[in-house]
Each structure stands twice: as C-alpha cells, then as structure tokens.
C-alpha cells in the first residue's frame, strides 16, 4: 500500500540535517545526507526513545543525541554491538520535491 505525500523541497532540509514530519502514527524524521540522499525513519531511537532527528548525520547513519546509538538510516537498524530497530519509511525526491510514503 502506498500513500505518497509531498513534504517539502529538498532544500528545506539542511545538508547533513533533518526535518520532523508530524504524522498520525507519530513523528517521522526525514534526513538529507551529504550526497543529497533522503531517508525517513520513525523519530524514536530504539534504545530510550531519543529524537533521532536531532542527532548528527554522517554517511548513511545518525547518532542519537541522547546516548550515542548509531542508527543506519537506510535500514533503521542500530549498528553493532547495539541491537534494535526503528521503523523505516519510503521517501523519494522528484524534481527537487521530497515525497514521503505515509502508511
């Protein structure tokens, strides 16, 4: 099932930064990395619920601001040796516009 929604322009997200999208199911963090790739995950760290959107973005990962868990943005999986997973959402850029599949 897909439910693509327009979120914002790509340029509205800072490079190596994020924006928060408020959805019915909870906040979704939409990230942009140095290669202009975008990723979207549930804005809650699997560890203690920290807002991942506020972490430092590097490569294809974000470091949670609360206790420095590293979460893979393309998988939602915590990097070893931590174990955990946060929900991942489909997101794409078309003509400079960011679209999010809000399921």
């Amino acid at each position: 099932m897909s439910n693509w929604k327009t979120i914002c322009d790509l340029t509205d997200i800072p490079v190596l930064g994020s924006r928060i999208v408020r959805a019915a199911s909870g906040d979704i963090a939409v990230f942009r990395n140095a290669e202009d790739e975008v990723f979207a995950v549930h804005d809650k760290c699997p560890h203690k619920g920290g807002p991942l959107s506020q972490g430092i973005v590097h490569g294809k990962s974000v470091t949670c601001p609360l206790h420095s868990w590293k979460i893979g943005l393309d998988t939602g999986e915590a990097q070893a040796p931590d174990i955990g997973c946060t929900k991942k959402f489909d997101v794409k850029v078309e003509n400079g516009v960011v679209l999010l599949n809000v399921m």
Partner: protein
Amino acid sequence: MEKLKLVMIGNGMAGCRTLEELLKHAPDMYEITVFGAEPHPNYNRIMLSPVLAGEMGVRDIILNSLEWYAEHNINLHLGKKIERIDRINRTVIASDGTTAQYDRLLLATGSSPFILPVPGKDLPGVIGYRDIADTNMMIEAARLYKHAVVIGAGLLGLEAANGMLLRGMDVTVVHIGEWIMERQLDKAAADMLMQSLEQKGIKFKLNASTTELVKGESGRVCALKLKSGEALPADIVVMAAGIRPNAELAKNAGIHTNRGVVVNDTMQTFDPRIYAIGECAEHRGIAYGLVAPLFEQAKVCANHLAMHGIGRYQGSVTSTKLKVTGIDVFSAGEFMGGDDTEEIVLHDPSGGVYKKLVLKDDKLIGAVMYGDTSDGGWYFQLLKDQQSIGDMRDSLMFGEMAHASRVGDVGHAGNNKAAMMADTAEVCGCNGVCKGTIVKAIKEQGLFTLDEVKKHTKAASSCGSCTGLVEQILASTLGGAYQQANPSDKPICGCTDHNHGTVRKAIVDKHLLTIPDVMKELAWKTPNGCATCRPALNYYLISSWPHEAIDDPQSRYINERHHANIQKDGTYSVVPRMLGGVTTPNELRAIADVADKYKVPTVKVTGGQRIDLLGLKKEDLPKIWEDLSKAGMVSGHAYGKSIRTVKTCVGSEHCRFGTQKSMSMGVKLETMLFGMYSPHKVKLAVSGCPRNCAEAGIKDVGVIGVDSGYEIYVAGNGGIKTEVAEFLVKVSSDEEVMEYSAAFLQLYREEGYYLERTCHYVARVGLDYVKKIILDDAERRKELYERMIYSLQGFEDPWLQAVKDPEIRKRYEILAV
C-alpha cells in the same frame, strides 16, 4: 578492478589482528588467503596456561571462529605449512602442493621454542611449549605419567610447571641462571616467587645445565642428566628455554634476516611487497615475544596495507605478568637498575610483598613487584609516558590510590583496586555496568582495548570517570596482553589515525577553514566523519580562525545547534543569561510571563545563579526567545561547550565582610566572555572576600577579593571529580582580573583538546607551563587577551539570530502531511 591478492602465512594473533584492522580500513581492497600450520582457527595463545591449568577449555580461547573467516571471504587453509616462497612468480607453495599467488605477502609465522642441542632431544616425550598440541601433550602426560621436568624458569616454563603440577604431576624446574625469571625479576623478587612456588610443590634446580636426555625402555624419555651428574626422573620434558623467531622461510627466499625477519617502521621486509609481523619479525634489533607490541605492529601494518601510508611503529616498552593463579608478579622496563639510577624499595618477606621502583632523572624507568601488583598498570603508564615523578616521589611507592587524592581522573570514588573488586561491584555508575559483566565481555568477546569494552558493555562511555578503573580491569584480566594507550596519542575517533594535537596543528599551519578541507588534507577514512570528530573539528576551526571559519550547525551537538538543552523526553530547557547572577524585576516578569504563556511545567533556580525553564517544545523555542529578547534577555549558553556563568556573592556593595565589589566584577567578566566557545564548558566565580561564598575554589577561573585586590585561581572543577583550583596570581585592579582571566582562558581555548576541561588541560601541560606564559611573559599575556577579545567581537546572541532570520527559524518548524 580486480582485487589485489593478499596472502598471509601464519594464522596466529598478530596476523589475524592485522587482518581485522585491515578489514576495518579497506574491507574490499584485497582477496585474502591465509595459511595456518595448526588445524585450529586463531586462538589466544597467551591463554594456553589457564587451559593447561584446567581453568579454561580450548574452546574458550578461540578468538576468530571459522564463521569469521567465511563472513569476510577469507580463503583459509588450515593444517598447511608453507614450504617455500617463490618471489619471482610471487607465489607461496605449501607442503601438500597447494599454491597461492600474492600481490602482498604477510609473514606472521611466529616463533618456535628453542630446543637445546643435547642428546635425546628428539625422543618422544620431549616437547616445547607453544601451541594447543603441546598443551594437549602435557595434559595427556599428566594422565599417564608421574614425573615432569621443565627446562627454563622463564615466564612460560613456570606456567607450564604450574599447570602440570595442578594436573597432579611431580614437577622439577631446571634452570641455568642464578635465579628464576632473571629476564623479568631481580633476585629479591625471584627468591620470594621461588619460595611460594616451592610451597605449592614445584622443585627447583638452579645453576643447572642439562647434558643429556635418557631413553627409557619404552623408547620414551625417562630421565634427564645434569652436568653435576645428577639424574632426574622424567616422563615428559618441556623445553622452555627461550624462543626463536621462525625466519627460515624468509631467509630461504633471500630476504634479509637476522634473529628474525628484519622489518622497517612500516613492517615491510627488504622486499617491500612482503611484510612481517609479530614474533617472527625483528624491528630495530628487537624480536618481541609478548602480545602487546604485536597489536601495535598490526595496526601500523594494516594501515600500510590499506595504502593510507600513515603511522609508524617505533618500538614498544613491554611489561610482564605471570599467569599463575594466586601469585602476582609484575615487571617492566629497566628493573635491574645501574650505577646512575636510584631505587625505592619496599621489602616485607614475611608479608610476601616486594616492590622496587627504579628512577633516573626524576623519571620512572623500571619496576618489579611481587605479592601486590595492583598498581602495575599505573607504574607502567608512568614509565611509558616518561612523566616526571618529582612531585609525587614521596607517595609513589604507595601506588595510585595514595596519589589519586592529589591528581584528577584516575579512579572512581577512590575505588581503584580492580583486581580485588567483587564481580557484582558497580564500575560504571552512569550505565549500571558491574565488574563481572566487563570481565565476561573481555573474555568471551576477546576484547583488548578500552574502546572495545566501551562499545560492548557501555562502561566508561558516558561521563568517563570510571575509565581508569575499566583500564585496570582490562589490565588485570588480560595481564601482559594489555597495552594502555597514551590518551594524548589516541586518535580522535575511528574516522582518523590523527590525534587532537596533530589535527589542530594542521588546521593552524595550513589555514584550513572548513571540515571537508580538514578531512581531505588529513585523509579522513569516512566521507563525513561521525558524531565524535565533527564537533571537535568544528571547534578547532572556529577557535583557530575566528571570523574566517564558518560555524557548521550540523556538526554541533544537539544542544548547541538548538541553543537549548535537550531533556530525556525530547523536550528542551531554556536558561536566559543573568550576568553575575544579578537580575531585575523586569527580567523576572518576562520570565514569569513566558512560563505562563507557554505553560512551562517546571521553573527552577540553577546552580549557576539563574532560572531554568524546563519542558519546552522544540517548535515553541523561537517564540519564547522572541518574548525574552523583548525584555533584553539573551542566551545563557547553559547548553554549550562555552562560557556558562559567572557566579558571584553580593560583595562589598552590601555585605559587611566584603572587601571587593564582586557583583560588578562578575558582570564585567561575564560581559567580556559572552559568546566564548571553548573545548568544554567554562564556569567562573567571583567572591568578595576569602569566606568565598561564590565557591570560587572549584571553578575554571575563580576570583577571590581580598583587601588589597584579587586572587585568581584556575583549573578547579566541581563535577565528576572535585578538583580544587590552583592559585595563579594576585592582582590589584579589575582590569588585571579581566586580562589575566581572559589570557588563561584563551590559552586553554588554543591548546586544550576538545572535551578537555581546564583541570585536565592544566594537569596535562602543568601549572608551571601556564604560569610561564601568563605571568612571566607580559607580551604573550597581552596577545592572548587581545586574541580573545578579537574572536568575541561582534558576537550576536544566537536566540535573537533565530528570531530574526526566517531561514534559521524554519529549522524549528514541524512539517505536516
């Protein structure tokens, strides 16, 4: 592009560590083939003694499982010994005819026990002590026979003797030297050790050389003859009289060898395609037989194989610890001493304690300990750092604990006897990790470094105050295998091999202005760093090149990026600045109005004499700042690695004891320093008299008013480990207070490593150094002061910026779907 071919001969600890490091740097660069003569995957050779003693099983000591090799696509040939290296065709040939081609070859062939050239040396029952097969042979012999003789009373020999004794054998150790372990111990310590081993039941023959091994009726060895004519019954003879690097293979291939395969500082042999590492290698005339140096070599070698071309191995200082349960022996450095050295000795024969420290020019150069070795790691660190011990001479002998009360960041609540702690004792108070968990992780996961323990257990990964304790646990669990890293040499993080000092120097020398420039110049290993290095780089850039380097918000920790403190539930707290803790009815009214308007759940007075509004939503922050700005209030930077507060007492304006106007002095200092970013947070205080109600004695800069002026104290800390500030200087005017304080803080800003508080910075460089610059050199002091003023010029309140700039304001808005 086709991958390069890397072949490794030898499948032991040094080689596999190199592969692990290499796979971290360049996982896809090489197609890797490994030949191991033993039928086992890589195991922890130094743990063979506990296996022999029956304290561990063979499975417990495997470091890399077969799955590990498969997972990394390593072509593993077990039980195949390489016979020949054909350098012309770049091929290695194994005894069973298997061949492999290489672009790079890594020799990690280790060493062999030195077998005495005496008649009978080849009899069944005569072995060295090197691998799992030897260990099994001893275990088997203990089951069937009675008499064991060990030749050589070195580390390995004694561990072998102890193991066979525990398995029920009658053991005699034959040693050619005057005392046992003469390469590690002096006579006094050795005598005590020998005595306690004798009490356990091991017999010793000193000054004894072996002339012949006698063949028994079964064809197996049955006795050992000494030069004195005496014959000892022996069903098994273990030769532990030293090791020989396995350099034959290289020698036959025409590579330069001496005792071992000669290598340079990047671990390359005379054929630059061929590297040698570990016990088979000889570096600057030394072939190491202990595991710690091998790990340092592995790091350098992997670096070079990954073509980073940085990192040199420059030799190691080693220490030894005997793994015989119940007996503690430690030695390091030049423990014998000489004509130009001094010794501090504590010798209590009936108490079973002996300690000798060897000093030269106020530096520790060697140590031997018997009985109580809990401070071994600490002495070893002092020795390697070549730190001057002049000011701790009187307490040096009594160990780290006695010293801990005087220097910061060494233990946790004075509890630093790691070896004596119970398994259930809590080590890391932040993450609730107890000793048993750490020891278990070290043993089961095969951890060797502090970083690995941090990653796997989370211990020491938050506030870091238990780092010293965790290092001690590592040292006591691993024994000689543990190599404590020198903190100022440590790379910033896994993204680079450079330490803080080199990175800052490059930024200054090469006039680097952006994070990508630094990463390019210094060959960063990751595309855009990580949450550890980026904030550090950002700080070094903006502090080295004020008004030139542009602050990168995405490389700031969340609190600094959003100019508020994130709380555990993801809400924020906001603290407006109150200069010197002095406020007005108008400011208080504005704060009260904000608290009402935004339904602030908690309003609290902070330790820094101001008011904290807690529980705010991110999207409300700019609106709150707008309201506070209207009342003339600015950010208190309660969130930053920056100037926090200047705490004051009321001083002579009101107090009947006050000698100076501490409030106005505090306001002047805080106004001057507004907007100062620093390696870590900076707190000041000004007290109006020596009663010191503003608690200036535990601040980064503490000012205490006296009748004739002010006393300035620096490098205090009221946090994790309380540090009393040290007296810097006495001055007479407000202007001097500002100049000296600013000069000290600017020096710290220019030289302190990121996340290093002033107390740690001063402990690192020494107060004398700071005094020399700030007190003795008026010109430098003025320059530092001026650089501080210059870098803070035109600093704009970040709250007001966010209020005015719609681009910034947008970052706080939530998007809707």
